[in-house]
């Protein structure tokens, strides 16, 4: 019932709320990024096996984690959107997908770059890299599906269904790839199999993870707001908003 109560006000309210939250995420993301980067690149000790090349972990691991984090966000939003038919949740799915894809791409790229000094090749069919590649395919499929629909309400719903299908499939994909990898590669040491990381190395990594997560939150909110504006561009409150912001600009100029 309550989905019909006031769809107009709801979009507007979440627009305002996400606008209020957005700066806080950025305020968390930027300082942690600087601290984590400087600490990780300059002060953390070098790895006794890999030397300085291991430092790419400070980008690779957080990016890989957030690639999954973005997908989890999408899956939860898709579930809420489909079960309770909330359009804003479906918009969240659409808003998050490209960000997740970019994080996945960063993880893939850094992983490949890391592979060069480790294995002497840009690309090795390592289980994690392969899973990330497939995750990227899944992301691109969702984005392509969303963009193919001209009616964005239907687009959001279709993308949500595909996200949920993916959520059941991704663990199976990961599991199968890991198994396939152990069979075909056997003895390769995976670079992540450290029994324990030294604390001096671990703390900057944790800081970077917090930073990437906060930035993910910021970007999701940012794109979510754009999505709302685009979908509701004909509504009175958006028109009023545009008018007031343009008059502010002219006053400032």
């Amino acid at each position, binding site marked *: 019932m309550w989905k*019909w109560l006031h769809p107009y006000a709801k979009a507007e309210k979440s627009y305002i709320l996400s606008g209020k939250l957005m700066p806080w995420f950025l305020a968390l993301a930027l300082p942690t990024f600087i601290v984590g980067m400087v600490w990780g690149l300059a002060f953390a000790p070098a790895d006794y096996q890999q030397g300085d090349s291991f430092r790419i972990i400070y980008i690779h691991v957080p990016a890989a984690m957030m690639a999954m984090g973005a997908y989890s966000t999408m899956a939860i939003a898709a579930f809420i959107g489909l079960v309770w038919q909330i359009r804003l949740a479906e918009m969240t799915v659409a808003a998050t997908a490209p960000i997740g894809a970019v994080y996945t791409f960063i993880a893939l790229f850094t992983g490949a770059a890391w592979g060069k000094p480790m294995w002497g090749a840009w690309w090795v069919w390592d289980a994690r890299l392969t899973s990330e590649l497939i995750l990227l395919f899944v992301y691109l499929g969702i984005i392509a599906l969303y963009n193919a629909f001209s009616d964005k*309400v239907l687009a959001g719903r279709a993308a949500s269904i595909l996200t949920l299908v993916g959520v059941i499939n991704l663990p199976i994909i990961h599991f199968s790839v890991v198994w396939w990898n152990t069979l075909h590669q056997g003895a390769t040491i995976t670079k992540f199999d450290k029994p324990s990381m030294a604390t001096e190395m671990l703390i900057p990594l944790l800081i970077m993870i917090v930073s990437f997560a906060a930035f993910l939150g910021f970007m999701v909110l940012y794109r979510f707001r754009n999505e709302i504006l685009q979908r*509701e561009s004909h509504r009175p409150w958006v028109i009023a908003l545009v008018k007031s912001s343009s008059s502010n600009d002219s006053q400032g100029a």
Partner: protein
Amino acid sequence: MLQCKNLTCVREERILFNNLSFTLSAGEILHVEGPNGVGKTSLFRLLVGLSSPYAGEINWQQQSIMSDRESYYKTMLYIGHKSGIKPELTALENLQFYHDLYNPKVEFDAWEVLMLVGLVGYENVPTAQLSAGQQRRVALARMWFSDCKLWILDEPFTAIDKKGVKVIEDLLIQHAKKGGMVVLTTHQDLSIPTEFYKKLILHKPTTGEQYV
């Protein structure tokens, strides 16, 4: 009783119609009229539950049609723009399928139905080889063996000749007399007795309220 309350239909961010309410009781034929692009077909797709309204509700016998689709579909017959007839199957096979899957309880003599719609002699020809009007007749033939109370017909008379229209009109009147209900669109004038006949005219929204 079919009841629509404050229906709003939105397609690609544009409002087709807003706050549409009407009620259809037993023995009534509702003729939905309006210019092209006003949302007649969209309204019909809402009524049969193929799409869901942006706002408002549709009730059949005091129950939302979405709450129990299967029992709604037991009492509802929809013949849309697209005929739903498989071109590679014969008229006989098509009708047999629709009978067995949709109205298996009705006693059914396919030959008699084909005779009534004027398709005797074509029963074993794949429907792809029939003319547009004949294909339409195959689709409409479903009305003759339907025990559904509510018929929803989107442009049933397209490509049908005058004599055929008369036959179908008679069938609709008969259906209404038995307490059935019909919702249909057509650009033709109908000669249906006024005690059964109701009209609903759809308007384009004024420019100020075109968008959601």
